[in-house]
């Protein structure tokens, strides 16, 4: 278990005009599973490689349990990386691949054999030690790569897009395996992904990055309920953004005037801001009673997605999206005039121009 601290980590590649990673600070507690999430090219893998010691930061500090590790080379740092495309050594057996890290440390052959078997059992592949990497499926190769990293008992485990090369079924299986092993070994783990769903399902906390800058570091739940910016909200499926003018716990918008819980306004200043609410948190229907925070809208379109239906609703000149469970009684069709309820405890604000 290692407490990892990144302090204003910055990387500018030679010849580049802009920093790939800029003033990135993060506190990763012992034994946590943290996701670096963001679109391609946002600096996630660069940051991961800086933690591993494979890329030297231009500025900033990295500490493991308070010890500055910047000067410690990758081979001695104890931050082991599992690459996206597994990179099993094709000329070695599975057993030799898994035992590679111990061999490099000069551990005796008998101990290596024993530990290799333990690790293969941990990743639920106990009988493949003698096979060659080209005889394994993608999922098996990923597990072997994980075993090869874990055998060295790393201080920090770094996973680069661990599930992106797997099909949907294997992805679920691998996700469960990673979480269960991480919980069992309590190794501080950072993984990189561009898939918001993957981050939510795997991570204790998510560091959202755009253009090399950390946007928000929070639990998955917070990203849904309390996004820091419009862009962060959009990355997590937010679609409703309405210009608003706040005054106390009341807000005026182009779709109506609402009241909201005062604690939901911490993120944006008084006055001009943007109201946001998740589509699944808006209540719609003919049976929604008139009252506070209820306005009338007309259904422009409906898309049936199996377990739920997605509606686009026009309210004056504005259009919002709402999701309604398919199990709920009462039918809503295109063109219907319906009541739309913005629950006061679900309304959230982000600053204007926070794209």
């Amino acid at each position, binding site marked *: 278990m290692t407490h990892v601290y990144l302090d204003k980590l910055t990387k500018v590649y030679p010849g580049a005009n802009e920093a790939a990673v800029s003033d990135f600070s993060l506190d990763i507690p012992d034994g946590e599973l943290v996701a670096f999430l963001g679109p391609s090219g946002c600096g996630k893998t660069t940051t991961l*490689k800086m933690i591993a010691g*494979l890329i030297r930061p231009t500025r900033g500090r990295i500490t493991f349990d308070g010890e500055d590790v910047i000067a410690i080379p990758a081979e001695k740092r104890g931050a082991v*990386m599992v690459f996206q495309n597994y*990179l099993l*050594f094709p*000329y*070695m057996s599975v057993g030799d691949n898994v035992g*590679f890290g111990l*061999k490099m440390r000069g551990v005796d052959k008998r101990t290596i054999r024993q530990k290799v078997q333990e690790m293969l059992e941990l990743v639920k592949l106990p009988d493949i030690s003698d096979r060659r990497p080209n005889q394994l499926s993608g999922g098996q190769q990923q597990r072997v790569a994980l075993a090869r990293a874990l055998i060295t008992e790393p201080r920090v485990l770094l996973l680069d897009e661990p599930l992106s090369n797997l099909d949907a079924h294997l992805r679920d299986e691998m996700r469960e395996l990673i979480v269960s092993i991480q919980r069992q070994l309590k190794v501080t783990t950072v993984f990189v992904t561009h898939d918001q769903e993957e981050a939510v399902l795997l991570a204790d906390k998510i560091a959202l990055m755009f253009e090399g800058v950390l946007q928000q570091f929070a639990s998955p739940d917070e990203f849904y309920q309390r996004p820091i910016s419009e862009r962060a909200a959009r990355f997590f499926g937010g679609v409703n953004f309405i210009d608003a003018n706040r005054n106390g716990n009341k807000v005026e918008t182009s779709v109506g005037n609402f009241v909201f819980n005062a604690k939901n306004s911490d993120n944006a200043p008084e006055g001009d801001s943007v109201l946001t609410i998740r589509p699944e948190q808006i209540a719609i229907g003919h049976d929604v009673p008139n009252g506070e925070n209820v306005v009338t809208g007309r259904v422009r379109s409906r898309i049936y997605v199996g377990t739920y239906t997605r509606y686009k609703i026009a309210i004056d000149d504005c259009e919002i999206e709402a999701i309604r469970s398919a199990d709920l009684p009462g039918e809503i069709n295109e063109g219907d005039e319906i009541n739309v309820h913005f629950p006061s405890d679900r309304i959230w604000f982000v600053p204007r121009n926070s794209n």
Partner: protein
Amino acid sequence: MTFWERWRIPIMLAPTMAIVIILFGGALYYGFLQSLGWQPRIGNTELSLDAYNNILFAGPQTEQFWRGLVLTLWVSFASTFLSAVLAIGSALLLRQTFVGKRVATFLFQFNLPIPHVVAAIGILFLFSQSGLISRGLAQIGVIGAPNQFPIVVRDSLGIGIILSFVWKEAPFLGVIVLAVLQSLGEDYEDLARSLGANRWQRFRYVILPLILPGLLSGSVIVFAFTFGSFEVPAILGVRFPRMLSVTTDRFFRDPDLNSRTEGMAISMIIAVIVLVLVFVYQWLSRRAIRQE
């Protein structure tokens, strides 16, 4: 499956295969017959192993052959090994980013299209006792006179020949290794680093096994070429011992047409030795990789 679908690839390969089989196979067959003494133009139609016996065991050329074989093996192994070592070192440096990389890469590959005979003459002009280097060193007083410069050209150890081959073949192997390294990228090494491998271990357990298949194929070509190459040892070699290819040429151009039989016998022996050594070389190398 139609006839065309079934035979399409063999039919398309046929012109190439015909050239290989007719030209190479025909020459080999004819050469083998000549090595057995079959020369109807001068009335020899009886087949025997006399030429092989004369060369290998009890003829006036036996010593020339065995000493020549030792020299040929030495030159080929040394040239191939040194070229491979230089190729690996150069490719490892050239794949990195540094000031003047493009110029360095161009210079490294510059001599690839230059004929071997030009390389041999270049070595002669540079490294002989009357060459540029010896005269230059004498001029600046490092040696008293040009003839004090060590004999590295037209020497019995074949150093000039080896130099010439290395000068030509190191870039050839280097291009192969560089292409392999560039296609692999640096992820394998980064992975090994993160697993605790130091610089030497990364070379020994990661880079070398990954480049070895390409390097082996290239080395086999270099070895076979240097073993049978004629023009470089003809220019840079001594009269005794001669490399086998030069001896073969002497026999072949001897006014006495009976000598061709010995020449062809040596050619056949060269072909067999090269084939056997190539197989052994590959087998040993693959075994070495597996044992790791």
